Every structure is written in C-alpha cells, then in structure tokens.
C-alpha cells in the first residue's frame, strides 16, 4: 500500500469522527442553553462548545462576538475552521476521493452522499428549531459511514490505518473535552456537589455516555470520581481513553503481524495502553488531573506523528 494511501485512510477516519464530535458539542450547548441556570453568563455554554472543540482561538481571530448564531455558523459552516462540520465532511470526502481504489463503494457512496446533502443546506435555513434535527443528521451520517466501513472493508492494512485514525481522533477529543472542565471532576466537588450535577451530566452527554454511566455504576449516582473514572479508565465505555487505546494497541499488534515487523509506534501505543489499563483514579488525582490530561494529549499526538513516520505517510 502507498504511504499516501495509508495517510488518506487515517485522515478520512479522523475527519469523519471529528464531524460527529463537533455536532455533539453543539447539541449539548443547545440543550444546556434551554435549561434555566442561575447567574451564569448566557453565552458560556456556547463558548464552552468552542473550547471543547479546540477552536476558541480561531473563532476569536475572526473577531466575532459570541452569540449562539455566530458559534453555530463557525462550528458548522466556516471554511477556515479545521473542525467545522463543513471542513470535516469535505476533508473526509477529499481523502476518500484520493484513495478511491483503497475503499469500498459503500464507504465512498456514504461520504459522497453526506457531502452532497450537506452542500444543499443553507446557513440561513438552519433556524434554531431546525438545528437539533440537523445535528442528529450529522451524527447519523457518521454512524452510517462507520457501519459501511465495518461491514465492507477488507481486514488488511487499509482497515488498520482507518481504525487508527478513528480512535486517535476520538481519544484526542475525549481528553480535550475533559480538560476544558477538569475542575468539575476534582473529588472535592463531591462534597455537596449537587450544583455540579448538571455539569457532570452535560459532560457525559457530550461524550454520549450519560445512559451507559447509569448502567456502569450500580448506584447510578453522578459523582466526580466515578465520572472521571468512567471517561478515562473504564474500557467498557466506547469513548473513554482506555477504550480508545485498547483498540489502538490491538490494531498496532495486528499491523505488526500483517507486515511481520514491529515499529516504534507500536511500542508507544503499548506504553500508553498499559498506563491506562493499570491506572487508578486515586493516583491520577494525586499527580494532578489537568497534568494527566495534558500529558495524555501530548502522548496521543506523539503516537500519531510516530505512526506517520513509521509507515511513510507522504
């Protein structure tokens, strides 16, 4: 396989995953903005969505004022925003287009149809009441693509690179979302923490984990310690850091077997995975939650850089 093909499959999956994450962040902001909450700045939830998606600086550089409308436009339609839904869908499609020979027609038609339908959406037509339906559509298209991929792609190196892009992006997103509000997950907040309940639930919601949290913890009570553990260390949770690295590590083993050669990126992945597999929340707290998350994001990034070197991403 061409190194460039591997790169395109990796990025195709990253952008596809990111489109869903961006939509989910907006959905949460939209939900919370409808709940009356005292004293808080009305635009805080929207600013928060920008921060979680890592595009606050880019938004500010454009000089706009934070309003629901400006944030929605920036995060859905802005061509200069590398995480906007538009950019993600276009980049996923462009990457897929440059490797038409490396993906199945089901995958291609899924991405192509999404892009064609998205191109027909006019920003002014996306009124407040139409937004939830649109965001749900973005999520469904991402799920549909993922289904097409899992159901049709040959289990060879192409599949592995695509999976790696998917889980590297997801791990990055989860770490980012946690870090933007890590303080609400500090254990001190458990004391008389009722005021934080809606923040914890919004965090879980942003990562599609509110319902599964209730099943994962027998008392179903929202507690900072448990929420943090759930999103970082519980490998049953499909958006937790541990779950992502369980997959990445396994995929690197598969790739090693496939090529008959173990590369340094596989060792990096194994090291990150074992840290999460053996990790305890208490230790993470005592070392500092924020530092842990920053360190994780850096290592996740280092892994993807090393992967690109090892496999000649052009």
């Amino acid at each position: 396989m061409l190194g460039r093909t591997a790169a395109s499959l990796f990025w195709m999956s990253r952008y596809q995953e990111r489109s869903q994450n961006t939509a989910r962040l907006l959905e949460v902001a939209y939900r919370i903005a409808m709940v009356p909450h005292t004293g808080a700045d009305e635009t805080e939830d929207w600013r928060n969505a920008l921060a979680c998606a890592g595009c606050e600086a880019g938004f500010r550089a454009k000089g706009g004022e934070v309003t629901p409308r400006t944030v929605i436009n920036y995060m859905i339609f802005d061509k200069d925003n590398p995480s906007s839904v538009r950019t993600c869908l276009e980049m996923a499609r462009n990457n897929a287009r440059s490797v038409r020979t490396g993906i199945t027609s089901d995958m291609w038609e899924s991405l192509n149809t999404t892009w064609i339908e998205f191109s027909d959406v006019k920003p002014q037509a996306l009124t407040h009441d139409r937004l939830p339906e649109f965001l749900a559509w973005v999520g469904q298209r991402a799920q549909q693509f993922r289904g097409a991929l899992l159901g049709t792609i040959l289990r060879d190196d192409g599949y592995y690179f695509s999976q790696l892009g998917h889980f590297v992006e997801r791990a990055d997103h989860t770490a980012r979302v946690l870090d933007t509000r890590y303080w609400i997950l500090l254990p001190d907040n458990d004391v008389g923490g009722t005021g934080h309940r809606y923040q914890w639930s919004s965090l879980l919601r942003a990562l599609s984990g509110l319902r599964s949290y209730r099943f994962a913890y027998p008392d179903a009570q929202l507690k900072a310690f448990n929420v943090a553990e759930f999103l970082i260390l519980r490998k049953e949770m499909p958006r937790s850091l541990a779950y992502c690295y369980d997959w990445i590590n396994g995929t690197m083993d598969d790739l090693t077997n496939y090529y008959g050669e173990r590369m340094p990126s596989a060792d990096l992945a194994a090291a990150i995975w074992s840290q999460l597999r053996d990790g305890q929340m208490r230790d993470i707290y005592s070392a500092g939650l924020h530092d842990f998350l920053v360190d994780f994001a850096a290592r996740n990034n280092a892994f993807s850089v090393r992967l690109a070197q090892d496999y000649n991403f052009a």
Partner: protein
Amino acid sequence: MSQERAFFNEMLREDGSARPAYARLARWLDAQPVNFLNRKSREAETIFRRLGITFAVYGAQEATERLIPFDPIPRIISAAEWRRLSAGIDQRVRALNAFLHDIYHRQEIVRAGRIPAELILQNEAFLPEMVGFSPARKVYSHIIGTDLVRVGENDFYVLEDNTRTPSGVSYMLENRETMMRLFPDLFQMHRVAPIEHYPDLLRQTLESVAPEGARKDPTICILTPGIYNSAYFEHAFLADQMGVELVEGRDLFVDAGRVWMRTTRQPKQVDVIYRRIDDAFLDPLTFRPESMLGVPGLFDAYRAGNVTICNAPGTGIADDKAIYAYVPDIIEFYTGQKPLLNNVPTWTCSRPDDLAYVLDNLADIVVKEVHGSGGYGMLIGPTASKREIAAFRDVLKANPKNYIAQPTLALSACPTHVASGVAPRHVDLRPFVLIGDQVRITPGGLTRVALKKGSLVVNSSQGGGTKDTWVLED
C-alpha cells in the same frame, strides 16, 4: 453552420421510416408512455451523482465538480459499419505509431519530402529528448482516442487523433452500466457487443509493453495529477478496475536508475506507468523545473529502459493539428495503402495561399488553434457574430502558424431526449484503441452529443452530453 442545412439522421430515413439498425429502438421508443424518459433521466442522474461520476471545470468556483449530462437514448452502429470503421482505425493507429518511430529515428518521411522538416523540428510537441530512443515494442501511443464524425450513410471523417492522454473511457463504461440498469428489456431485444472487458484489455496492453527484462508480473500504476484534475474520476476508476495503484508524483521516486513507489513498508519497483499528466510535467529535471506533479529523474530511468511510460513522451506530435493535414500521406507512406477513413479537408494557415482563402471565408468555416483542445480558442464561422469574426481575423493574421481551418461539416444527428420529447441532435464518436502486443479496439466508444438545437459543439466543457454507443453483433 445554419440550422436549416441538411444532415444525416442516423435513425430515420427521409420518408420517416427507421433504418434497419434502429428499427427495434424506434418501435420501442414509440411504445413508451409520456414522461417515461424524463423519469429514467432523473434516475440516471441520481446514479451518476451518488457514484461521483464527475468532471472538474477549470476556473469555475465552488461547484468545481459537475456531472456530464447523460442522454438515455443509445446510439446504434451496425456490425458492418463497425467493421469498416475499425479497419480504418486500425490502419490509422499503426501508421501513426510507425510515424512516431520514424521521426524520432531516421526521419525517412522528411527525407522523402512527404512532410516539411520544419513542421516536425520546430514543433513544440516534438521532443528532442526522444531522438534515438526506442520504447518497448516500438509502441509510442498505447492508448488512442480517435474522434470521428459522420456526414452520410457511408461517410465518416476523422476529426482528430488523440494520441497523448485521451479521456472519456470511464464514461463509455459507466454509460453502459447505467443503461443496463435502466433498460434491461432493450438489451434483451438487441445483440450489443460487450465493452466491460476494456479494463482487462488495458491491463494486458500495459503488461505487454513492460521493459524487456522486467519481472514476469510487472508492476503497473496510473500516474495522476491528483483529485483536482478534470479527469480524476477516470484515473481512479481505471486504477480500481485494473487493480493497480493510483499514484501521484510524490508517491514515486527514482533510485539507482529505477522507479519506486513509496509504500507503507519497503519501496516497490514500478515497471509500467500509465501517466495521465502532460509531457512537460513528467520530470522536473528534464522538463519544467517548477513542476510538482512529476518525478525527478523519471526520464533518465525511462531512457535507460527500466520503466515504460504510456503514452510515450513526445507522442503529441502525432495529433498536432498542423500534422493532421498530412495523416493521409503518413498512412500511404508507412502502409503503402490508401487511407480507409477520410480526413477533413484542412487549410494550414502557415501556407500563404491557405491563409488567404481562410481570411476570405471566415464566415463559413471553423478555425482551430493548433495546440488547443476542448473547444477553446476556436472560431465557428457560421455561428459567430460579425464582431467575433473581425476580432478573430486580427488574431489569425498576427500568428497564422498557430491555426488551421476546416469546412463546417454537416454532422449526423441521433435521436436524443430533450424537453419536448425526442429530437435529433448532432453527435461525434470517440472509439478507444489499445496498442501493445496487438491492436485492440473496443466496439463502440464515447458518443458526445450537442444538446442545444442546431449546435455542433459537443465538448463537455461547453455543455455537451454523452450517450451510450451500441455496436450490434450480426
């Protein structure tokens, strides 16, 4: 050309009866309910859009990918007609390859006084770098698209020989796929020669011209400029259908005189490159130094005989419009036979007599740029305004060498689906020819159709459409 001028109707005789090859189709068309073709056209468009069968339009912003309009009524060619056509094409492509070998070696045709030396040596498409070099099997142009027009029952003309990187074959194949999905009953009523093995034939052709001494199972790739090229869909389509890698210049490198692909593991040697980029961009060390599309050192590896480039660099001289007027001479010179297919009479504006005639008759003829393509930079006298003709006159006088002129031909017309129902529209035809260890001509080709009433411009960049081309078997 004025709309009133008589043209050959491929389906109907003057008394309104259908010609034999079209008899079944004509009856079937009459039997379809109103709106049936509208519905089928919409279905076809949905299929094309979902599959992403598009071409890019240069200069157009935003909507840079467009669909070529697809006409759902097939064009039909009888078995006897096809036999005559393919014999003529076969003769022509062999002669053109012999011509290419000759002008890059002994130049006998120039010595014999059949073609002026300066027409070759001062031609931009002539590559001095190719002089003295022989590609594998002496084949220069491996994939040729011969543009044909018809003006009468047995009257076919060759309009152009596309010997560099002809495109459109993916539309020929996808049009057929789509037609089989839309009209299975029509296929049952006809014996249509299959074309879907074209990718296999292309692969066999490319394998057959691997360098001598290449490994038994040669590695082939298609070299594309990338996703923004107008024919990118076709590049990806052919790579997919042949099961070979689709590469960009940056995926290849030259080491120790050989060409390699950058893969996720060890580099892999490449034996045959079906390139879809122009000569000037192939190798920045030999040609344009600023080009990012090509592969540094590729030309040296080629001249060392370690890789085959299809089509060979320098083949453009064979489809140069200034050379076109000489193709009948070329055929006679190399085959000793009379040409089976006609050339369109051509005035070469570099000749003073020809230029004088052209300037006097601009309103009646077509003038084309020698190096132009895709319907740009041309004058269609009969439909041009007085001002356009006056402006073109100045351009022509300033640089006559850059132009040729031809009479406007009464192109044949085929039944075509239009807003008002079914009406005749003018067409041309591009059959695709493969030349390797043998000459392989796919029965049919791409029929392009001018969708506007009376229009003779069939280019997709100028709003033309395409239709499936059926060659009937006996």
